[in-house]
């Protein structure tokens, strides 16, 4: 196994809070092992900053294994950094080489206001789910799990959409700041299952309305979201959402 240590230059967006303007600040980080994860590299920098009396860089993270959707970071012009189908927390320093300059920016979208430095507020996603991203079934109402067989392909497709981790990279990647990949993943997840059927129409109409209210842009099918999505959520879901929307809109009372 190789142990290449490298020296890097970082250009990091620093911003005290939502009400101030921010700017890029340059840092040198030295002796970074290529076995480190990207966030561990930032940990190293932060430890250094703390000891020298500076404020560490704020960034969101929690599980550090690519599933909670908490980490973000727009690294060198791509959400979640250079690797495909990957979250920032799983990006490793092997992706870079000695002497590189790495630019780190927060997710940029008015619907995701900056909290501090690289941390943004993604509460809009929760509110979109509140608008209809669920099946209205109270605890205790359920029938036996096997009483309703579901075609395996549909179940698998539904699962593939349900894998969305709500990270917001799709919004960050989209030139329109559209949340359609996120939204369509939820609409597809539920539209593909019989359990989602009763609320199918109201769900899509209400969720789209909420998305608009939150200030996301509209989808122009560029495909940037799909390319940046760490869970490879397919853009075909957006087309499915459109169909659901059209159907619901035309048949709504």
């Amino acid at each position, binding site marked *: 196994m190789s142990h290449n240590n490298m020296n890097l230059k970082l250009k990091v967006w620093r911003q005290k809070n939502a009400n101030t303007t921010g700017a890029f600040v340059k840092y040198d980080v030295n002796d970074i092992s290529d*076995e480190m994860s990207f966030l561990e590299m930032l940990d190293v920098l932060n*430890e250094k900053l703390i000891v020298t009396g500076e404020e560490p860089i704020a960034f969101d993270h929690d599980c550090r294994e*690519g599933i909670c959707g908490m980490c973000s970071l727009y690294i060198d012009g791509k959400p979640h950094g250079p690797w495909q189908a990957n979250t920032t927390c799983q990006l490793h320093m092997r992706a870079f080489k000695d002497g590189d300059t790495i630019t780190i920016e927060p997710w940029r979208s008015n619907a995701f206001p900056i*909290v501090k430095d690289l941390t943004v507020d993604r509460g809009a996603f929760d509110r979109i789910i509140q608008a209809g991203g669920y*099946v209205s079934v109270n*605890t205790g109402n359920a029938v036996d799990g096997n009483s309703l067989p579901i075609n*395996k392909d549909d179940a698998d497709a539904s*699962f593939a959409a*349900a894998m969305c981790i709500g990270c917001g990279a799709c919004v960050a990647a989209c030139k329109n700041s559209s949340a359609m990949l996120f939204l369509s993943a939820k609409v597809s997840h539920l539209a593909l299952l019989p359990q989602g059927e009763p609320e199918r129409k109201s769900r899509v109409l209400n969720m789209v309305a909420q998305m608009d209210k939150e200030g996301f842009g509209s989808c122009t099918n560029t495909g940037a979201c799909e390319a940046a999505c760490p869970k490879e959520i397919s853009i075909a879901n957006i087309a499915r959402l459109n169909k659901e929307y059209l159907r619901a809109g035309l048949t709504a009372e």
Partner: protein
Amino acid sequence: MLNSKIPAGKLEEKWVDYKGHCKLVNPANKRKMEVIVVGTGLAGASAAASLGELGYKVKAFCFQDSPRRAHSIAAQGGINAAKNYQNDGDSVFRLFYDTIKGGDYRAREANVHRLAEVSGNIIDQCVAQGVPFAREYGGLLSNRSFGGTQVQRTFYAAGQTGQQLLIGAYQALERQVALGNVTMHSRHEMLDVVKIDGKAKGIIARNLITGELEKHFGYAVLLCTGGYGNVFYLSTNAMGSNVTAAWKAHKQGAYFANPCFTQIHPTCIPVSGDHQSKLTLMSESLRNDGRIWVPKNLDEKRKANEIPEEDRDYFLERRYPAFGNLVPRDVASRAAKERCDAGHGVGTSKQAVYLDYAAAIERYGKIEVSKQGLSNVSTEEITAMGKEVVKEKYGNLFNMYAKITGENPYEVPMRIYPAVHYTMGGLWVDYELQTNVPGLYALGEANFSDHGANRLGASALMQGLADGYFVIPYTLGNNLADEIYNTPIPTSHPAFEAAEKAVAERIQTLKNINGKQSVESFHKRLGKIIWNECGMSRSEAGLKKAIADVQALKKEFWSDVRIPGEINEYNPELDKANRVADFIELGELMCVDALNRNESCGGHFREEYQTPDGEALRDDENFMYVAAWETTGEHQWQLHKEELKYEVIKPSQRNYK
């Protein structure tokens, strides 16, 4: 003194009876009653949603930016339920029995039986919510087998079962938010329980964005705050997982039970250096096909693939011929540690063993050849076919391994090492999930209740959802029925003011230390102490030393920690400092508990108590009890014992040879 409130009657009728006779709160009164739920993992989200549906006014809290990110999201393998869909002889009793046995006879029979009883309902509920479980071609639910059982009862959604279950519960929660029954407070950290007349009546929470302290009243406080594995610094838990909520409850009088019962999972990606911030689990399922070995020679210099068969030691197969690589987690972990301690470890750190897929690849390749009726196939072709099969079964895990280590696990054996994964210990609760502080409840991993000294795979998800969906709605009502005569207490009450002041002062004290060392560096040092002395194996001398070390660390922390930034702003370092301060205190209690338990059982292995061939030696005579600790002062605890009575199952020694 400790009343576990287990209903009388036959084991299988206790819960039914309880439900039939428990007191109820009428809908009009529920609407007037505020309930606080801290935590939105499987336990918290399911509880908050269910209570909201019942009409309670719920306030839910989590420290992440969204309830959907609770650490339950990371669970991979699956969730158990006694559905017997496979017709392979499963039943409520068998699930109950397996869980008790897996826990090495240190769990409460009545709780575990209830868990098994409601397990089926959980699956039904989740399916109804639209959780896309794996299915067979016929459209019915699929099951897989898991460690410690002989039936297939584990429901799963690829390697993302926890995610799918949590999304289901999260959506149910968000629906209640939309309906106005639940108010969600994300990026809020609970920093104290407020007690009035001995009862829990609210919490103090810090808004992590603004740094402001908030007072919240509730007729009851439910802690669903997860496990404390991060006391080890390195664990498979999320970075933010913490003991703070449970610890504050403990400081307010709630007993902490069996803190030394922690689970070390055998198959994790090993530590690669000092920079390491967390460990990643590789699903237990990998042990189904992989073979675990170390080089026989000390100081082996050759690469794994160059070491011939005769120089390899398949130590699990050697020591446990009957179960081989599939022994339970605690046994597998200890065996790996034993080999590494003896100097046979691999990799740069020498703290790893090989998990080898070469044999499986060859075996699957040959099966493919005969399946397809081919002849004259070269070894390379067989290998290629075998790799395809392995890829289909474990592809996502292999990818994850490759991403983290930069090695190709199809070509070279993976390196794995045990890592902290789960904590069986937690707040002591009675049958109703209420701690000894009235009005204060603990659900999910935060309580100690169902897994004894070792948890079986796929049963934590089950427990979290059982507690939240099917237990608390009844038991909370039973207690709140007596509270309807009490009017809500305004948060201007002196008790709230005093609690808030105390929290503010503590934060100010922390901030004022203004020392030289970072919070993280203390956490790392704490982790090393606990891992070395209260990890996979423990000894009297080691534990005593650890207690002294932790006490010294505590002193140093409170005199030399440095927290940058301000109090009244978003300040992750401050959040971390609060948590690490509590971990340090918990670390000491863990060692105290481990020192007290002069036996080996489940995940707790005391070197002094083992059989001649190195297996755990239980002492049912003297230690068949739950150790519930009450804090009585700094560095001081009093032990309360809850005797465990086995009325249905007869405890026996576990044997996997």
